C-alpha cells in the first residue's frame, strides 16, 4: 500500500486567481487611502484581509491599487484608522462575477 505523506502547501499567486475574474476598470479609483494616516500603523490589517491582495507596504509606504478590487468592503471595515474611503465603482464598472 502506498502511504500518504502531508505535502507542503503550494500557494497560488493571487494574480493568477484574479486573471479568471472579469473587470471593467474605470479611470477614476473608487478607493481612496489617506496614506498619511497609515504612517506608523504596524497592524496593517488591509494588507492581510484584502482578498485581492491590493494593499502593500513598500519601503515603509502604503501602496494600493483599485483595478482588481472584488468590491467586498473588508478593507474599510478592518482599518482601525479609518484611512480608507470606499465607494462603489460607477454603475456597470468594476467586477462582474460570471460563474460564482
Amino acid at each position, binding site marked *: 500500500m502506498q502511504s500518504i505523506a502531508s505535502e507542503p*502547501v503550494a500557494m497560488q499567486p493571487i494574480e493568477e486567481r484574479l486573471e*479568471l475574474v472579469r473587470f471593467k476598470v474605470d479611470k477614476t479609483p473608487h478607493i481612496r487611502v489617506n496614506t498619511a494616516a497609515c504612517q506608523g500603523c504596524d497592524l496593517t490589517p488591509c494588507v492581510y484581509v484584502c482578498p485581492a491582495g491590493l494593499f502593500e507596504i513598500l519601503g515603509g509606504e502604503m501602496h494600493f491599487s483599485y483595478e482588481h478590487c472584488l468590491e467586498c*468592503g473588508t478593507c474599510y471595515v*478592518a482599518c482601525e484608522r479609518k484611512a480608507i474611503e470606499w465607494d462603489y465603482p*460607477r*454603475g456597470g464598472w*468594476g467586477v462582474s462575477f460570471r460563474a*460564482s
Partner: protein
Amino acid sequence: MHAQQQFDVIVVGAGPAGSSAALRLARAGLRVALIERGEYPGAKNVSGAVFYAPGLLAELLPSFWEDAPFERYITRRVLTFLGKDAALSLDFRTRHFATPPYNGVTLLRPKFDRWLASKAVEAGALLITSTVVDDLLYEGERVIGVQCRREAGALYAPVVIAADGANSFLAKKAGLQREFSPEEMSLGVKEVLRLSARTIEERFNLTGDEGMASEYVGEATGPVKGGAFLYTNRETLSLGIIVQIASLARQRVKPYELLDRFKQHPSVAPLVRDGVTLEYSAHMIPEGGWQLVPRLVRSGLLVAGDAAALVFATGIFLEGMNFAVASGLAAAETVLEAHQKGDFSATGLAGYQKRLEQSFVLQDLRRFRLTPAFVNNERLQNLYPELFCEAAEQVFRSEGKPRKKLGPTILTTLRRKVSLWTLLRDGWQAGRALFF
C-alpha cells in the same frame, strides 16, 4: 418632475430580497423601479451558494423549480471537524429532501439573480442596471426617492426598499445602521471548480440531480476564526472559506492562502482533484446576528436582506438567501398596505417589523442570538476539532492491547488539553446556543 421619474416604489438592489419585493409589488400593479449597480443582476453578488427553503418562492412562482436555474437539490449534509491529519464528520442523507419544492438547492448567483429579476420584469417592474444609488432624497424627515449616480439621476417614490447588500450604504446614510466592527463581519472567498457531472456524482455518492452541502470547522481555516464549505453544483464545485475579519487581521493570514491550505488538506484534496478553477470571488457577510440587525424602518424607507444583516450564521445553519426573500416579500406586503392607506410614515410601515417578528426571519435570529459568540469560541475554533479527531482516533485505534471502555478513552484524550470544568462550561455554552 417628469412622469417617468415618478414611481410607486423604488427598490435598490436586484438580489434575492430586492427582486422578490419588486416581483410581488409589480404583480399587484404598482409602478416599480428596480435599480441594480451591476451590469446585470448577480454581477456583484456572491453566496456559497445554498438556497434553503426555496419553497418561499412558490407563493409568487408556482412550480418555480421547473424553471429556476438551480444546480442540484441537497439530499446530503455533512459537518466536519477538521484536524491537521484527520477529520471527523457527521454525514446525513435523506430521500425526504428530494422532492419539490426541496429543502435546499445549490445555485450560482449570476444565473439565479438574473432569473429572479427577469420574473419581476415580466410582472412589469422596470429594471435599471449599471446604476449606483448614491443617496436617498428627503423631504423633511421623509424619504421621497433616490439619487442615482448619473445625469438627472433623481428618481421619486413615496417609499424606497433598500436591498443594497452587505455594505448597505443606504441603511447607514438613513441613520438606521451603524458602522460595522470587524468582529461582527465576515469575509467569504470562494472558487468555482469545473468537474464533469459524472465525476461529481461518483465522488460524492450522488444520483442524478442530488447534491451535497458540506461544511468544515477547525483546521479548515488554520488559526483564523471561521469555517469552510464545499457544495456541489451540476458541473462545478463551489469551495470556499468564511472568516471573521477581526481574526483574519489579528492572525495576519491572507484569505486566499487559507483557501489554498483548505484545498490541499489531505481530506479535501481528493474531493477537488482535477477540478479546473473557473472563477475566484469574494464578498462580505454580516454574521453578527441579532445584535447587528438595524432599525428596519423609517418614514418612506424599509431595509431588507443583507442590508438589514438578516443572515443566519450559526455554525450548523448557514442561511441568507431565504432570509432575503422572506424579508423582501414582507417589505412588499407592507408597502402594499401603506399604498392602500396612503400612509408611508414610520407608523404606516411599522407592519414590516411585525411581519418579520411573526416569521422565521426575526424569530430564528432572536432564538439563536447566542450562537455568534459560541461559533467564535476560541476552543471551538482551534482546539476541539483537533481534539475530537484525536478522541476518535483513540476509539478506532487497534494495537493488540486491552481497551478501556469508550467513556474513559474519550475523556482521557479530551482532558489532556482541557479541564473538565472548561469542557462543562463550553458544553453549556453550546447547549444554550443551539440546543435549549
